[in-house]
């Protein structure tokens, strides 16, 4: 970058729970504590929201201060000594937890948040063992449908107001409020509106308890039954970092994963809802080869790979590759190598939609390009004009479909090319039964790989569930085809190796990308 050189402000020395840290002036105690390895318990604070300091959970003891101070809004001073675990701080937290529980219903057995609930967690960690709230009644607020996907269970609400602040300041749509006063307060919604903002689903994640819940996830799975895998949203070119949550090999939801450079703490509702394709049961289960009789029959991988290899070796002239927009960088790169001896027209499918920015965060939007790896494909030389590619297929000697999702019309235009069609697919295309081979591949949840987002950030994703037993990642399929009959062939050992072998990405391995990605293009 070409910014003028100036000396940064001097760091401040602060001691938190006996550990010295150095932080820039203006850092809050709660953020400085993170550097000291301490998470100060809190509810209303959130690094992507303005801080109102209302929950009072983060009160800490600072030497020489007469009262406990809220760590979320108190900035550090030079030489400050902070105690988050002192007797007074712990008693204050115990007090807050007890106060929160008096009106909180004992819903844990039926509440989706159980197991990932911050009220449960902190009460277990440092709350009172029993309640002192006697026969007094708890206040009652009816559950409300905030629609389309969000329910508000008012009784569980701890009035942290994260949802209101998110809608006001980050989504930019002031449709929620705090209504009434005192212990009658609840979260209200504009009577004529719904929570249908393209990013509204984030309030469910922001809610520390089970007050704002997703109807899609309602009673679907228990948090402790879930495996959570770091991944990247396959919905658009923004490349929001997500966690794929699975139970017994079924994807039950996407949740945001924090990445301050890409999506901060949020994902859009479209991406959030876009996990269903990962659970499809109508998968291509085994490699298939066209028999002499002209039928696709199940075959061993060796046989199928050899058949594909034979087609490619004998091919001359041109080739066409049509790939899914969700294909990994490794898959696209290695498949492309298969036709390097031919004049190749390679395209990926990028469905288009309407852009929906998240106002309060710079450079964050549901992007019009509804494909996660458009930039990666572009760096490899792939285009996006699928129709033109299909036209060229008529003259091509080889057509490779890499999990392309074609409609009946497009399939019809490709039909009759039987001799040149190699299909790699997750779901077998109905109208293309005359391909030479159909090779079962993995969805992005069933493999490791890299997507490059629209800002040129290469981000890795991990395997979240098992693939059908005989399915293989497309980079492996391509590398094996390329290496068929060549014992010295350089076959990548794993996805990271496959990525390293692509010069377009600078020889980086997955480990070099870390878990927040790395910019590989301008």
């Amino acid at each position, binding site marked *: 970058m070409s910014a003028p050189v100036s000396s940064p402000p001097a760091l401040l020395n602060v001691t938190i729970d006996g550990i010295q840290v150095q932080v820039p002036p203006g850092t809050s105690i709660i953020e400085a504590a993170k550097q000291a390895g301490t998470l100060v318990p809190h509810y209303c604070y959130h690094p992507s929201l303005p801080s109102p300091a209302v929950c009072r959970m983060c009160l800490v003891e600072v030497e020489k201060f007469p009262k406990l101070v809220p760590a979320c809004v108190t900035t550090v001073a030079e030489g400050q000594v902070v105690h988050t675990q002192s007797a007074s701080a712990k008693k204050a937290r115990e007090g807050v937890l007890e106060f929160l529980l008096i009106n909180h219903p004992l819903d844990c057995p039926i509440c989706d948040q159980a197991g990932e609930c911050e009220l449960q967690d902190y009460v277990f960690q440092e709350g009172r063992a029993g309640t002192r709230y006697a026969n007094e009644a708890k206040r009652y607020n009816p559950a409300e449908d905030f629609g389309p996907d969000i329910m508000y269970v008012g009784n569980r609400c701890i009035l942290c107001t994260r949802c209101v602040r998110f809608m006001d300041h980050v989504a930019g749509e*002031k*449709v929620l409020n705090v209504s009434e006063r005192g212990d009658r307060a609840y979260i209200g919604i504009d*009577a004529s509106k719904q929570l249908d903002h393209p990013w509204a689903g984030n309030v469910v994640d922001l809610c520390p308890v089970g007050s704002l819940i997703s109807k899609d996830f309602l009673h679907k799975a228990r948090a402790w039954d879930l495996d959570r895998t770091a991944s990247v949203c396959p919905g658009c070119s923004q490349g929001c970092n997500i966690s794929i949550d699975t139970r017994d090999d079924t994807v039950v939801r996407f949740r945001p994963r924090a990445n301050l450079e890409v999506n901060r703490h949020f994902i859009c509702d479209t991406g959030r809802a876009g996990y269903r394709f990962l659970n499809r049961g109508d998968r291509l289960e085994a490699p298939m080869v066209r028999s002499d009789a002209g039928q696709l029959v199940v075959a061993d991988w060796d046989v199928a790979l050899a058949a594909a290899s034979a087609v490619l070796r004998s091919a001359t002239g041109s080739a066409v590759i049509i790939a899914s927009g969700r294909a990994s960088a490794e898959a696209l790169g290695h498949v492309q190598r298969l036709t390097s001896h031919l004049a190749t027209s390679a395209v990926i499918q990028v469905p288009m939609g309407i852009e929906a920015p998240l106002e309060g965060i710079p450079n964050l939007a549901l992007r019009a390009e509804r494909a996660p790896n458009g930039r990666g494909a572009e760096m490899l030389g792939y285009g996006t004009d699928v129709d033109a590619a299909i036209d060229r297929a008529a003259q091509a000697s080889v057509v490779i479909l890499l999990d392309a999702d074609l409609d009946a019309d497009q399939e019809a235009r490709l039909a009759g090319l039987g001799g040149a069609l190699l299909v790699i697919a997750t779901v077998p295309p109905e109208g293309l039964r005359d391909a030479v081979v159909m090779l079962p591949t993995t969805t992005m949840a069933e493999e490791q790989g890299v997507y490059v987002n629209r800002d040129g950030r290469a981000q890795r994703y991990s395997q979240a569930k098992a693939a059908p037993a005989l399915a293989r990642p497309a980079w492996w399929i391509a590398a094996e085809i390329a290496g068929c009959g060549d014992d010295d062939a350089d076959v990548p050992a794993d996805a990271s190796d496959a990525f390293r072998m692509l010069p377009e990405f600078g020889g980086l391995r997955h480990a070099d990308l870390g878990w927040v990605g790395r910019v590989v293009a301008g």
Partner: protein
Amino acid sequence: MSRPTDAPYEPVFTGSTREKLEALQAQYPTRQALLLPALWMVQEARGWVSDEGLAEVAAVLDLTPAYVRGVATFYTMYHLHPMGRNVIQVCTTSPCGMCGAEQVRDAFLRHTGCVELGRTSADGRFTVLESECLGACGMATPVLINDDFLESVSPETVPGILTRYA
């Protein structure tokens, strides 16, 4: 909350009322600062603030209805339900409470025919509410009836007071 009749909502901020509101703008650097005055104007015109009233205020002040509702529900004096023609607020906080305010409250409930606090009398004439400290503790019991601030009300004076309100 619906209006008591099916009559369509009549906007408040038209003509001279709108002019009055806009004239206030010169006194404040933001539009939003007109919110409490605007809610008062709706209540003065209609006797209470309905959801349509909240929506109208929101539209006139370029705020969202959710925001306006959040503010309106905070303040006790804005009535968000239809009230009787005369709203009676009796202070019963301790300094008045220890000087007979509860008997005054009960006398109002009895003589108005309101069955309970907050419930409008059958003839639509009165609603009786308990108020917190009205700031006239030395003149117990103070009572606010509409815009009339009465001092030194006793159970004996209640019937006479009520005759002044149609």
